[in-house]
């Protein structure tokens, strides 16, 4: 096999990193998979199924499946809570990673602690049973004042006898014959569009929150009362195609997820009415024409992006927009307002770009493939990029990109040996 006796470092354990690792391992290559958070799976693992009468091809369940494959693959070594500290060498690399300790020894202790301290959110769970370990100390708590020491104190209080690890942050050096950067994206922070009242009006939520809710509950519910909405609205392009914000790009996934979520919710609750405010509707894949035709029948489309949202009685949200034909101001109240947030560059990109000597593009994503036919190579031999680290993509597109990155890396390994 082409990759025998070689080691590849994959940064980021979202679908792109997982799939690249799986493909490489399948070709006999040893992989070090370095994930910053406590869990593999990235954003895609947090999404719910959007099937109605049939699968709507959102791709969320494939993340689950690829994660299971990676968990069962002996050639992949996973490093959780780890980040790249530095890279040396050229062509053949020596990478230093920094890893935060686990704080508690075994999953059973953490599980017990999770059950006892549920409300405090000291301990969090993964999204899937294929997240191993399944429990982790909440990273949010660790970054609060007092950090690890405070958390351990609280854990000791709640669950006496839990075997703590008094580890310091540790550094490891890993040899790498090639590197694949798959560190993903940051969801747009909806607070940056203050007129929509996100964070202030209870039933204004982001697409990411709806996705997570769908995963956890199997339904779309209002945060204020946990009830399904009767009348919902989606605002598209929130944080994307917005020159004033400096985000001119189309995020390429939010039309698809919004329409699929809307249809999935309507399947469970045919009474639900959905309004979609949009500029252009982006295609969702091979069956898109038929799917969109159905959407046009079932949903109300308004070709205008609203400017404001206001709280109303009963947890409702009043949305104001200008009528696409007359330009007159229109206002209407909804039970739930979903902001279809998009994909923005991971804030770590700048640091990674410096550490790896690979440039970013004008938007802040890794400049792989821009205007190039080889879409996964960077200007630096031996360093490749996969998935949304290089720009907005869906789950299937991230997988295709990751496979191409793995293919190019395998070719590179052959030539380099």
């Amino acid at each position, binding site marked *: 096999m082409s990759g025998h006796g070689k080691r590849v470092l994959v940064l980021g354990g979202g679908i792109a990193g997982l799939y690249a690792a799986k493909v490489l391992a399948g070709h006999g290559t040893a992989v070090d998979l370095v994930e910053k958070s406590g869990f593999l799976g990235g954003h895609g693992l947090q999404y719910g199924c959007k099937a109605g009468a049939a*699968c709507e091809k959102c791709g969320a369940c494939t993340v689950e499946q690829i994660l299971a494959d990676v968990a069962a693959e002996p050639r992949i070594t996973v490093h959780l809570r780890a980040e790249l500290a530095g890279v040396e060498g050229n062509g053949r690399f020596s990478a230093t990673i920094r890893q935060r300790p686990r704080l508690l020894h075994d999953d059973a202790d953490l599980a017990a602690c999770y059950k006892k301290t549920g409300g405090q959110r000291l301990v969090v769970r993964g999204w899937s049973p294929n997240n191993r370990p399944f429990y982790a100390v909440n990273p949010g708590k660790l970054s609060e004042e007092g950090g690890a020491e405070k958390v351990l104190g609280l854990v000791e209080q709640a669950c006496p006898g839990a075997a703590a690890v008094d580890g310091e942050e540790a550094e490891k050096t890993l040899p790498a014959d090639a590197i694949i950067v798959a560190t993903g994206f940051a969801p747009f922070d909806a607070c940056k569009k203050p007129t929509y009242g996100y964070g202030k009006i209870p039933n204004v939520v982001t697409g990411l929150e709806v996705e997570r809710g769908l995963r956890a509950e199997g339904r779309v519910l209002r945060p204020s009362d946990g009830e399904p909405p009767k009348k919902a609205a989606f605002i598209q392009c929130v944080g994307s195609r917005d020159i004033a914000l400096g985000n001119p790009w189309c995020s390429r996934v939010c039309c698809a997820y919004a329409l699929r979520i809307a249809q999935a919710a309507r399947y469970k609750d045919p009474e639900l009415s959905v309004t979609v405010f949009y500029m252009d509707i982006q295609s969702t894949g091979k069956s898109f024409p038929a799917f969109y035709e159905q959407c046009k029948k079932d949903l109300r489309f308004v070709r205008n992006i609203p400017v404001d949202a206001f709280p109303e009685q009963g947890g409702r949200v009043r949305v104001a927009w200008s009528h696409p034909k007359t330009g007159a101001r229109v206002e209407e109240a909804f039970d739930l307002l979903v902001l279809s947030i998009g994909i923005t560059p991971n804030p770590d990109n700048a640091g990674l770009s410096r550490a790896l000597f690979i440039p970013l593009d004008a938007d802040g994503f890794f400049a792989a493939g821009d205007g190039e036919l080889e879409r996964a190579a960077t200007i630096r031999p031996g360093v490749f990029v996969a998935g949304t680290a290089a720009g907005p993509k869906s789950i299937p597109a991230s997988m295709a990109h990751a496979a191409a990155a793995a293919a190019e890396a395998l070719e590179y390994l052959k030539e380099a040996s």
Partner: protein
Amino acid sequence: MTRETVGTASTKTISLSTDVLVLGGGYTAIKCAAALSKRGFGVFLAHPGEDLVHPAGPAGAPAGDWEPELAELVDHVRQDKNIIVFDRARLKKAAGMPGDFSVTLRKGDADVVRTVGAVVVAPEFDKKSLHEKYGLSLSDNVVTQSTLDAMLEADDPVLSGKGSVAFVAGFAQEGTTLLVERVLTQVRRLKKRRSVDVYVIIGNINLAAEGLDRLYAMAREEGALYFKLNEPPEISQDPVLSLVFRDPVLRRKMLLEPDLLVVEEQFAAPEQNRSVARLLLLKAGPSGFLQPDNVHFSSVRTTREGIFAAGPARGYLDLPQGFMDAENAAMAVEDILDEGKAEVPAQTAEVDRDKCAICLTCFRVCPHGAVSWDDKAKISPLACQACGLCASECPQEAIQVHGFSDRELEGRIAGAAKDGAEAPTIVAFLCKNSAWPAWEAARAMDHPLPGGFKPILVPCAGEVDVDYILDAFVQGADGVLAAACHAGNCRFHQGNRYAARRVDNAKRLLSEAGIDPQRLAFARVAANMGVEFSRIAMQMHERLEKRKKT
């Protein structure tokens, strides 16, 4: 070329051809040939055109800045000794299994037969003019996008006489990023030539592709006017060419009288796909593409092992995506044909040649084209995905899937149905790809599950025999659940359809036997939905409890 692979305890020795057939004469096919040759495979590149040329065939996207790279690639492939090009050739016949396909190419008046280990299908799009959908007839001043391309290429003097050009696009079809990219590229080429007024009247602007948002921004800066409409403009060709529509920004009626009107074309799935699908026994997907619209068929996979679809063969993909596919297809070929990887797994289905009555049911049901026959049915271990559909359909019970033989399952069913003091006992056949992981998720997340819940792993819900269901009742189960994936999500393409049908059959049999068919249920759930799995199982539990009380 052939390569011998050495068998170990769990593998067999089979010889594989390391030649590969690539169908198509466009850049994706050419790139794929180069990528395969680089990996040491021999390539037959067959295409219907006269010659491999640059610019190659009806390429998906305008070559633009990639011109030099593409020209070099075509040259390289022409000179590559590992690549044999068949011009004016079409696939006429195909038979065999991964590692050993026999393909017949019709080249001119002659047939050429070759043995190949794998096939990559990579033809280019067909472009269809949509002027008729606008009620237009083509003329001096109403042209297709292809005509405009040719005029631009030839630097046609007629173009110099056109002071204003209008495009209409996105009203006669659901637009694609390919359409938008082509319009924008043509607008830019027009603008670059000389000063000309350009108007683009368009439905949706499909920008969801790499670099397209930037191209749109550039094209707008260069001064063309864009009108995004929800309805098509009124176009008349007589007495003068004119377009009437409402400008949605200024909210007023507009009249345009351009010197030239360019009408959109459709990128359609390659015409070849249809015959290729038939000859290669592929289950094609929507709009004539060669991949089912199913998330488990990622990247270049088709329903058959050893046959891959790249670029326009499988969807609306642009040139760079086609190039990624070309690399991915070459890597996938390496995966099955390369020495170490050719180890034939033991976890497949096997035919008991003594029992087989050669009815060929298995050949018809196998979604992966893994069945062939000599005097008895034969299953290719390289092609078989061990889904078990054939095993449950075979009237002679002549097929067993490794790890899921009838005997093994009978044992598990007996164990599950009898075990369990807390009634009601639910024997649940859970598909490995969907319901089983969903059940595992439900457990991990502490979602409620019935006390008498007894899961049994099956490779695909379509493997569940009616006999298994009846057996579970005979052995004492209070309820039986068969749980599969959602329609259109089956990893084995259609196993869930068989499952649904069999449950219906079993219900009928139960009624006839005087057993309440409500005790049997069929459910669909995705692998990631523990919460829904819990709901399904608990609802069944409650139904059975209620039944018991009444």
